[in-house]
């Protein structure tokens, strides 16, 4: 590769010495075999990633006779929204047949307070860890991060006991508390690293001027940390919306989130399965995180990467 490059090197501003790569952009024919291989591989993988989305959407617009004809690639003969209406209003989730709409609203009721509470607590935590350190605070933080890798199954039963003692087992409060607990490690890490990157002089100046803990937090730190709040928001809304385990254990039968109800519609249905309704329900459940993903774009990447990079 380097040989051909020296042969066909362009004329850059600096004269290259013999044997080294010329500087500046090299003229590239677009259709080299290497390029074709490169794009072919990328397109192949893209098809693997896109195929389920295509199948899911196409199936949801078909009628059952058309599906039984047996071609999951085919576009619907005529687009019908019946499956979508049925998935939303009258598909059976175990005992009741009210469709996914109650699950959707349950998920909304779980996601909004859980997101707000967990982000607020984690932001205050991160702020305290950076600017108001006390003896032992870093030890607590280390255990918090380490604890985030422990499987949830280890905490599940004791948490059931604790929430039962508090009288909130099987209620929205229980799910909110559990989401706050298990969102805390990653969010605290996120906010701690962000606050640590802000100039400490700001904090010191505010202290000299007599501002206290909360005043500095609300009037100086919060206005400066909008980007990290957006990242945390994306992380939490998608994470909590997609949760299954905590919903099924702690929410109680009245508050089962959308993921749980979706699984009930598809996997515990009686009678012949209606694949178009199943797929419409699946699309509906995936819609909220997908919209967040497509709207947030680069911030989502930052969010998930932030979830990965330790401090």
């Amino acid at each position: 590769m380097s040989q051909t490059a020296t042969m066909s090197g362009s004329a850059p501003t600096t004269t290259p010495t013999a044997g080294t790569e010329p500087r500046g952009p090299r003229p590239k024919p677009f259709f080299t075999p290497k390029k074709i291989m490169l794009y072919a591989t990328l397109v192949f993988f893209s098809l693997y990633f896109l195929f389920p989305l295509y199948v899911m959407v196409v199936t949801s617009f078909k009628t059952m006779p058309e599906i039984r004809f047996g071609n999951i690639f085919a576009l619907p003969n005529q687009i019908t929204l019946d499956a979508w209406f049925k998935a939303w209003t009258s598909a059976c989730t175990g005992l009741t047949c009210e469709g996914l709409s109650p699950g959707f609203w349950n998920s909304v009721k779980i996601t909004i307070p859980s997101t707000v509470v967990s982000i607020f607590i984690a932001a205050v935590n991160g702020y305290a860890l950076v600017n108001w350190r006390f003896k032992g605070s870093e030890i607590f933080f280390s255990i918090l991060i380490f604890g985030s890798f422990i499987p949830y199954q280890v905490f599940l039963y004791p948490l059931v006991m604790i929430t039962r003692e508090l009288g909130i087992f099987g209620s929205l409060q229980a799910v909110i508390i559990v989401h706050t607990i298990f969102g805390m490690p990653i969010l605290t890490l996120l906010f701690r690293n962000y606050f640590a990157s802000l100039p400490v002089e700001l904090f010191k100046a505010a202290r000299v001027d007599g501002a206290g803990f909360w005043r500095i937090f609300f009037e100086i730190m919060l206005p400066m940390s909008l980007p990290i709040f957006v990242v945390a928001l994306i992380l939490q809304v998608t994470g909590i919306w997609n949760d299954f385990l905590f919903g099924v254990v702690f929410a109680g039968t009245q508050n089962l989130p959308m993921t749980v109800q979706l699984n009930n519609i598809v996997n515990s249905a009686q009678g012949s399965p209606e694949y178009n309704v199943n797929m419409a329900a699946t699309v509906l459940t995936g819609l909220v995180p997908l919209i967040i993903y497509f709207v947030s774009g680069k911030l989502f990447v930052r969010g998930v990467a932030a979830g990965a990079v330790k401090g």
Partner: protein
Amino acid sequence: MADTAVHTREGAEQAARPSLLNRIFLHNLSGKIAAIPMMATVLIVFIGCTVWTIYFSFTNSRLLPTGKFVGFDQYERLFATSRWNVSVTNLVTYGVFSLVFTLGIGFLLAVLMDQKIRFESAFRTIMLYPFALSFIVTGLVWQWIMNPTLGLQGTMRNLGWESFTFDWIANPRMVLFALLIAGLWQGVGFCMVLMLAGLRGVDEEIWKAARVDGIPTWRTYVSVVLPMMRGVLVTAVVLIGSGIVRLYDLVVALTNGGPGISSEVPAKYVYNYMFGGGNIGQGLAAATMMLVTVLIIMVPWAYLEFGGRGRR
């Protein structure tokens, strides 16, 4: 009267040692109050609940955690239960394949994406969007695609390819690979993004130096760039690994452990014994074994990351 006496004595002691009290409680009081949720989470949940689970895994608790101490009985029963052994074997098989393929494909895609290609953000959007979806959605879509009669197999046969076979979801020997296809679909994009960030973090000078020395590109990736990405690689392994141990939703949605028990996993075993089987002690013992597995993965990592040198 006695109460007041005690109070005054305590008061006297406090007055006598103001510095200690001050150090522990009053100094930086707001900071400590703000950290109460974190301290409670660490002490009650991450430490307290773990200890509780380990302790009660040594009891014969059934419907309520009140049983008496029975030593390692639950663990003996656990390892004598074929469902548990199948679960563990499944998890190990799935885990090895998932780790290798996620890292391998993730790295390959990251390298391809790093070739100054066109439409980079479009490709990234396509590869990462499944990561936004839940395991339940992932599992249900692939359950439909892999449906033997009406899914991919049925379609291919209807189109005239009579011998086309893709019945992994109903085949006890292949069902783990059905899980793998769905799991990779969901997680590879994320691994690619991580790896791409790692590749972009490699100094351009390294590439120039390798080119000057006439080292082939693939060789530079394998021998120079990959070792330099150690941090990202370790992070990816730890994240993928802890995700694998937790594998639960995907199995529930895609196969529900079937056919038979051929795709059962430990997390599902724990759940079923705790909330379905009315045998809490057994579920807790299984949960403790999951904890031990994670510790075996985590402790060497924590030692390497934090024990060696203070990086970042």
